[in-house]
């Protein structure tokens, strides 16, 4: 008992005060960036990219990375002959709008027709959207969405209950979400906690590509979560399918199955990147 007490007082505080104080600059690998001024548009990186995240238009001399697809493997940095690719330690990459995850017009066009239009999912999954069109005949989706968002903020205030759903990840993201409860991150200090059932949750934190076998479970979990609710896609798989895009058993991101509020890129995103994304979803960070 005495030893236990001794240990408890030995390390007074390990918790990092993120996001109130930024992290001490570390050498970890974050966002990869392409310097278009240095790039010679040889196309080697786009050719080798394991998740086809690099979009290149040689004739227009434009290149960009789609961070929804990027698996942060830094292979492009290794391949680049002219040193145009740099890996920074930026990790606060979560966004509300998936299109802003790529800094390239070509990607924007390619992306526009992917979410929620995946034909193979069948009719049954369309009903999962929060808003039922028949009940609200004269309102546009945009208005409904912005109204809903305002309601969400008002209702959730500054506290949040999260249910985590693994919809087909490699378990990397899940270990990082687990790490949110460790002494270093201690998510509860921000008024955010994990709950055991979707029926108690305000937010679903979803990892994985949305596999064929998890599809129904994910939609059921979503439906079991009381409205209003938020969905956050964690990791490259949940954002776009990542390296597992386009196989017989996966979907290209969970937004093919349920509406997503915030996308957190990364493979896997660091715990602080997940905290940033969660806070972004409830508007506690700008």
């Amino acid at each position: 008992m005495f030893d236990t007490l001794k240990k408890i007082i030995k390390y007074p505080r390990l918790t990092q005060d993120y996001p109130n104080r930024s992290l001490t600059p570390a050498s970890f690998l974050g966002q990869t960036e392409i310097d278009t001024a240095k790039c010679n548009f040889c196309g080697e990186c786009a050719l080798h990219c394991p998740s086809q995240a690099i979009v290149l238009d040689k004739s227009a001399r434009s290149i960009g990375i789609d961070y929804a697809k990027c698996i942060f493997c830094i292979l492009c940095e290794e391949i680049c002959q002219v040193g145009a690719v740099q890996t920074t330690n930026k990790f606060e990459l979560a966004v509300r709008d998936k299109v802003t995850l790529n800094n390239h017009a070509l990607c924007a066009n390619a992306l526009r027709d992917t979410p929620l239009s995946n034909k193979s999912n069948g009719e049954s999954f369309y009903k999962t959207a929060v808003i039922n069109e028949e009940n609200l005949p004269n309102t546009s989706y945009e208005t409904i969405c912005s109204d809903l968002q305002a309601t969400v903020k008002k209702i959730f205030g500054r506290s949040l209950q999260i249910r985590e759903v693994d919809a087909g990840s490699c378990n990397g993201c899940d270990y990082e979400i687990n790490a949110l409860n460790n002494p270093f991150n201690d998510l509860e200090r921000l008024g955010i906690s994990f709950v055991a059932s979707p029926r108690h949750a305000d937010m679903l934190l979803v990892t994985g590509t949305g596999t064929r076998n998890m599809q129904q479970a994910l939609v059921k979990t979503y439906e079991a979560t009381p409205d209003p609710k938020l969905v956050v896609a964690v990791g490259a798989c949940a954002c776009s399918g990542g390296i597992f895009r386009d196989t017989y058993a996966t979907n290209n991101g969970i937004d093919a199955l349920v509406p997503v509020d915030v996308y957190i890129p990364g493979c896997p995103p660091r715990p602080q990147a997940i905290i940033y994304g969660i806070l972004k979803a409830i508007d506690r960070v700008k």
Partner: protein
Amino acid sequence: MTSNLKGNLESKFALKVFSGKEFSETAFPLATNQVNINSQTTLASDKDNSQHVSFSDHDDKFWQEQDNVYYLEAPLAKVKEICCYIQELGCPLVLMFANDERNFQAGYAVYYVFAVREEGMLVVIKTKADPESMEIPSISNHLHAASGYEREIQDLFGLVPIGHPDAKRLVFHGNWPQGVYPLRKDFAVGQKPDFAQEKIRFQEVVGEGVYEIPVGPVHAGIIEPGHFRFSVAGEPIINLEAQLYYVHKGIEKLAEGQSLEKCLFIAERISGDETFANSLAYCQAIEKIAGTKVPARAAYTRVLFAELERLTSHLGDLGGICLDAGYGFANFQFQMMRGWAYSVADELCGMRFLRSVNKLGGVRKDFVSGKEAKLIELLLNIRSELEDTVNIVKSNSMFIDRVENTGILEPKIAVDLNAVGPGGRASGIRYDVRKAFPYAAYPNLNFKVPEHNNGDINCRMNTKIEESFEAIDLMIQAIEGMPVGKVCEPIAEVKPYRFAFGLTEAPRGENIHWVMTGENNTLYRYKIRTPSFCNWPALCHAVKGNIVPDFPLINKSFNLSYAGNDL
């Protein structure tokens, strides 16, 4: 008894050695003109006879360098007898898989892989399935470990195991239509068959007061998805059936036809917390095919990373066991040390999950140079804290009472199901890939493999504790003994239709990858078997007779990967 296994098999069953050269001949018919007709029937022992004109010296050397693996071709009718014979000699079935070899006029091949662990040797029995009936004789009634593999092959290739005691679906759930087999070569990877509506059948236990508890796939904790069906009467569990494959992503199919470089990144994402063990197994297999010798500095670096992964994983598991027993203080101690282990990873490579470290032919860069003193300091810090914490935990009689004699995996069952890793070692299996099939720099380093016999949570916990200390010592040895030199030997073009095994000891146990190269530096077939595949059935046995509230604790003591099992 096993020393002359190969000779016995050849004489007793009149088997011929299969070298894989036949593939190259079918794939490159031009070369066959020069081939000596005898070469197809040549036994391995005759390899040195310089009869094979069509293959360069390098090729002959290649097949000989794999001489700890024997491929023997057997007729379908004899397979059962042969497999039983090998098992009786004490060699477990460690892997079984099928391959669509119709391109080589070889139909569907089924490979049975047995390990002769005392000698560090693999014996592979290869047979062809009957192409008309698409049937193979089931060996599951005699070799229980084969049950899962046969069901997997049935789902992915459509080869029916005749005589299987319970040949229900494994990989696919009720939503997958009948008659669609994704690992056949004529199935395109992106094809998405219509959704079927079949009911999943579970084993039924009937009797007075028996009821079922369905759990999952979405659990209460932050873990991966899986469905557990408990049959209980009162508190004790009578039967547990685990319905897995919720995170099946089609990894084996995805890898086919992809470049060797991309498959490395796929291998890193088989199971998040076993990133390094999986990428290492893949690299070793490809390096074997390419005939590349990894530089010594890279081999030591690989040990360092592999042990760091083991330490991180075990610290998390130990914390999890304590948490599920309601021992919060110990959980936070272990989580704190796990956090420190992650900071070692950050210090080394900037990635908490050790991704983008391995490279075909070595490692990506010199990760260790200049950081030696800092790393050793961090590791010694973890070591002293671990010592203190373990002393406190082990002297807590309330906690030990909970874990002792709970969730016993009987040694007989462990052997029958080929339980591997800490789960197997806690039940009396004396086996560690690092000792039996030495790789990287392990032959040059000193370490002990824990030996326990009781098979309960306490034994699994102690195994992990001892392995954590060994891992720290191994890392320090690797850092101190690391030779100078380059860290990567680039891989040249890889010849098509070559195959090799890659074996590593992942934190959860024996990890086997089998790759077969395709044309233009791609993969033709990638078979992955992570330790979780073997240990899931073992877990279902270990919970029997225990009370339901102890299930999370038993589950955590194995801490199996769903992603690594489901692929």
